[in-house]
């Protein structure tokens, strides 16, 4: 058969795509580059200013703040959400009933809009909100928790030691022993609490102003930290779905062989699971980095509630220099900042591929 070439029909089919790419990407990109070298402000006659915008940008403390925030945010959130998502996926990757139900349930935070989720969290993280109340409760009941944990560990150790001495292959986390340990811990804690031997720790009510503050924790502004927490919570499920799909492709035989060799669950995770899902890991980390570096929504939503300096990120800085500041729109600065963000995304993603997880599979 003659080799066809359907460039005519191809062109018609691709027309909408080509229009979008040409106008909304190419034209837009070129214009943004052009604006970044001018002092355009939507109204005045435009002058070419060379690299002035970039120089100004890097001497603007707000921009440097936004840059640091974006980088810190991307590093911490990507790492934590990948870890948390992998944990969720490993827990879910079992042959048990009701798996679809749990998978569906864990995905719920992902389907709500960022505004809805942020609103709920602004409420929960009120100075006198539920999160602070829970923290207070945990802090005050800490002696009981610690006692219970100690009892569980002690009882577990005794039982496992006993079993092993009698030739039974008891694992360190033997489930039946764990159950007995939990029961014993409950009884002991309740008893000691009844007789007043162990008392709740008396501490003041936790009143952390999660959003409405300029305080920082470990150099990270508290509002940004709050956004990190809620962001990890909302994005981890997406990553979990990707991991689950990857986990289901790992050959079962690998685990069976490892069992024969007497591998512990941790070793199996470290030496089989993680290498086998390398391609998914690459995807998750890359998507995570792109998403977190370009975080805008939460910064914009909380910006009126938290101080601007505590939540500003690169993406929000771009918007803010155009529409947020009480000056004329600084199109040049905004364009330069947007390009910095684009280059940063590209560099970080490439760097990640180089030194972190690449998309190449391990056993392929």
């Amino acid at each position, binding site marked *: 058969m003659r080799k066809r070439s359907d460039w005519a029909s191809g062109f018609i089919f691709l027309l909408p795509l080509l229009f979008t790419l040409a106008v909304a990407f190419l034209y837009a990109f070129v214009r943004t580059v052009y604006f970044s070298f001018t002092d355009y402000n939507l109204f005045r006659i435009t002058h070419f200013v060379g690299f002035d915008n970039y120089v100004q940008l890097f001497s603007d403390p707000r921009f440097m703040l936004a840059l640091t925030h974006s980088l810190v945010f991307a590093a911490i959130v990507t790492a934590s959400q990948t870890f948390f998502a992998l944990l969720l996926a490993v827990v879910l990757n079992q042959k048990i009933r009701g798996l679809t139900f749990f998978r569906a349930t864990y995905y719920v935070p992902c389907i709500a*809009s960022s505004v809805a989720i942020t609103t709920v969290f602004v409420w929960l993280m009120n100075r006198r909100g539920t999160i602070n109340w829970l923290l207070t409760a945990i802090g005050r009941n800490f002696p009981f928790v610690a006692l219970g944990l100690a009892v569980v560990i002690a009882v577990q150790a005794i039982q496992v030691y006993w079993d092993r001495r009698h030739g039974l292959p008891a694992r360190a986390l033997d489930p039946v022993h764990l159950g007995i340990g939990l029961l014993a811990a409950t009884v002991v804690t309740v008893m000691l609490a009844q007789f007043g031997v162990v008392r709740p720790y008396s501490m003041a009510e936790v009143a952390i102003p999660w959003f409405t503050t300029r305080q920082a924790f470990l150099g990270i502004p508290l509002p940004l930290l709050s956004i990190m927490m809620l962001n990890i919570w909302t994005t981890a499920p997406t990553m979990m779905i990707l991991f689950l799909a990857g986990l289901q492709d790992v050959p079962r035989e690998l685990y069976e062989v490892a069992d024969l060799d007497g591998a512990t669950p941790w070793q199996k995770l470290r030496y089989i699971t993680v290498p086998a899902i390398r391609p998914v890991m690459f995807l998750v980390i890359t998507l995570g980095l792109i998403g977190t570096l370009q975080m805008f929504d939460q910064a914009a939503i909380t910006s009126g509630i938290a101080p601007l300096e505590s939540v500003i990120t690169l993406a929000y800085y771009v918007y803010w220099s155009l529409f947020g500041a009480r000056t004329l729109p600084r199109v040049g600065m905004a364009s330069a900042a947007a390009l910095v963000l684009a280059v940063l995304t590209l560099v970080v993603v490439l760097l990640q591929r180089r030194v972190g997880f690449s998309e190449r599979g391990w056993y392929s």
Partner: protein
Amino acid sequence: MNEERELAPVRYRGRVYYVDAQWLARRRVMRKTITYSLLVLLAVFMVGPLVYSFFSNDPLSWPPKLASPKLWPPNWAAAWSLGVQGAGNGWTGGWAPGGKIEFGVAFRYPGGDTDPPLPRAQLLAPPYELGVPNPVPVTQAEVTPWQERPTEDGGLEVAYKVILTHQGSETYPLLPLAIIGAPGSKFITATLPPDSLSTRVSGTYVTWRNVAPGAIGYLFDHYVRAWTTFKGEGGRLLFPRWIGNSFLIAALRVVITVVFATMAGYALSRLRFPGRNFLFFFVIFTMMIPGQVTMISNYLVVRDGVFGLSKLVGLDTFLNTFWALFLPALVSSSAVFMMKQFMESIPKEIEEAARIDGANTFQIYTRIILPLSLPAIAAVSILTFQGAWNEFFWPMVVLTQPKKYTLPLGLNYLLHYYQAGATGSVWNMILAGTVISVIPVLVIYILFQRYFIEGFHLSGIKQ
């Protein structure tokens, strides 16, 4: 009798043990129990905050109330009965002429007070709208002692009957009430749980937003208020409008995306033309470019009416119109990517057979490719709907009038508008609005779960 024990092999640390089968079975059951407990715990962690905000009744109370009285069915019955007494309507309640409500309330008086003064019942103005004063319903309130009993610590508990009689000729949608107990008294219980409770020197103030709510008026009070309270210019209700806007935009986006993305996906996966691979690479590349880079120029393009195209529909600018929402996202790169990935898995032979039968490219697209791509189309539609429903950044750039807002913008507007002095009742409405905004995607998610997962597989795994 020598009972033979059943043995089962267990591999552990490279050795094989033979253990009692029951020993092993016990471990299996226990492991399952622990796994399920863990799964349930995680489920609470993942959906807890949302469910909690669905049901929260008194959002700013301290300590926070984890359970709402609205979850307690006897209260629904009480609300129904009060609605019937107030306006003969058990569903939505109200305060109509001829209404007569018997309302019970009980206080405790500690320490030797044998003849405590009667609590006062005070009718309040219904806050139909924020900041607008309203007349107090013309109503007579009469408080009579009903039952009393001494408490163990020498105090006295008294239950009162409060009889409210409608005296005017107007119908009110709400009947707010305050009952003020004598100083030092403690509120115990009432026919309907109060909305707020405060102890002051002058007395114990117990207030209800509405003592004739009806079942729906009681359960969905915040939702009704969120719906009816926020008004834009000309007194138009904002909430229904935002919902309408969101639905309209999301639906149009789905249609446009499906049509254009299947067309582009087909061309990229099946048609041969120079530059195909480069174009596909470019599509992937655009997914990595932050929206902020293209936003600046796109904003200007939209402001100038997309090279004058807006003149065709009689507008000078597309700013603050829904047209603006479609320009930069006419074809979404990720949808094209997904469609292309899926269409590549359709066997080529089907297409070739059709071509031999004389079908042209367009016929192949409509008759063969589209019907075979239905699963991918479903996945793309659902993800597009969700994306459009939740979209925040671009609408925020191009829409600046509250009446043009979509739901996320509207919620953001409310959050910012009220954040300084948000009272519990405003928070109630904002949270109710949040819930309203989540429900459509939640329903779609529950119905079409499978396709969400499918969409992920298309976009991620099959590379």
